[in-house]
């Protein structure tokens, strides 16, 4: 049993995991993440179902698709919808723009090719962009060990950029010199000939 599960009340651990998951979480996954036997998880979930019932809370715990999921109480839907209407989308970070531009000009690409192009591990940024529907997995790179997924920009991306297609963006050679383009090609060739590079310098200032 892990250390923290000794001191933290069991339902707390489960609440926290459920908050951090947008998808239903099964008993097995809850048990392995918390280090608690499924029996304990069941008991804790019974507590939580009470706490997060439609009568008691604006957040409800539902048992769906073989797992447990927190979601908003349907009674609160109008307020949530109004909130969604008002809210301004979070602007993208500089790193996110870089990943998008890599994919726009050289996509479809694997995650490791993106990291290779940027020179830093970009997996977290990629995940965020997938969550925001600006990138999507469009296939697999069978030439590579492990057949990693290939990513490309989405229709949502073109809409957000106010563009109809790739042709609407400035060409690569209008942005950087020949020498740079050659270097980038080389890097990409390297990325596809090598096994996925794990040795990227971490992205730390």
């Amino acid at each position, binding site marked *: 049993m892990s250390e923290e599960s000794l001191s933290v009340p069991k339902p707390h651990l489960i609440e926290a995991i459920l908050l951090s998951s947008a998808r239903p979480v099964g008993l097995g996954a809850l048990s392995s993440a918390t280090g608690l036997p499924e029996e304990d998880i069941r008991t804790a979930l019974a507590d939580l179902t009470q706490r997060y019932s439609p009568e008691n809370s604006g957040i409800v715990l539902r048992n769906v698709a073989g797992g447990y999921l927190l979601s908003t109480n349907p009674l609160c839907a109008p307020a949530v919808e109004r909130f969604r209407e008002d809210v301004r989308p979070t602007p993208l970070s500089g790193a996110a723009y870089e990943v998008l*531009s890599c994919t726009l000009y050289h996509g479809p690409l694997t995650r490791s090719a993106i990291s290779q192009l940027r020179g830093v591990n970009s997996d977290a940024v990629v995940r965020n962009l997938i969550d925001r529907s600006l990138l999507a997995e469009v296939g697999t790179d069978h030439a590579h060990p492990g057949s990693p997924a290939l990513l490309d920009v989405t229709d949502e991306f073109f809409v957000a950029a106010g563009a109809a297609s790739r042709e609407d963006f400035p060409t690569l050679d209008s942005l950087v010199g020949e020498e740079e383009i050659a270097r980038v090609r080389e890097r990409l060739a390297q990325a596809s000939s090598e096994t996925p590079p794990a040795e990227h310098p971490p992205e730390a200032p």
Partner: protein
Amino acid sequence: MTFEASGRSLSDFTVELDVYSGPYEWLLALILKEELDIFEVPLRELVDLYLNARNPEAPNALERDTDFAGSAAALILLKSRTLSPILESEAEGDEETISPEQLAERLTEYLKIRRGAQALRERFAANMGHHPTAHALPPRPGRLRLRPGLLSEAARRVFSRRLEPPVEHLGPIIVTLQELASVIHAALVRGPVSYEELVRDMDRLNTAVAFAAALSLAQEGSLRLTQAEPLGPLTLEPVA
């Protein structure tokens, strides 16, 4: 000149020298700001102090060694540059004169910034375990606007970035400092190294500065240069 390449693993290393006593990092700051004369800093003594304080068992021993070697290399280079004014001809005219009062002012300011940084580090660590809700609703489709200008800018940035550490803004000498750090580190840790071997993959500038640094280190007594015959191979040996 910069010590940016060094981490902050040496934050608890303090030195007692005639000209200065206090945190090593402050000493570096003082020298950088040319508020302490590099000639007044006995580099050899500094190396001895470090070696005495060194704990090879510490979990970050390697990082500390590398940081120290990096900053010591920088100091040596600085000293050698100061010794040969031909390399640096702009040291005249706009040199700022600073009164001890102003200096104290600036250092106090810097100390506050550092304390603020320490406090921030603690706050960030304490808040690290907070993960936000994953249930955020995506904004309505079409609400997000990407700025095409920023996309082009990002493309320019990525595709013209060199994969080496980004040091363009530091000037060519800095590349050498990082190389020097490892050069000196290797010399200190692994025993004798041939100069030819050290500089095999370096360009002319790096080779020249590595040579200057080796000479300077030898002058300091931190290493020995041996050459069996005139124009023969040159070997760098650590001083026992």
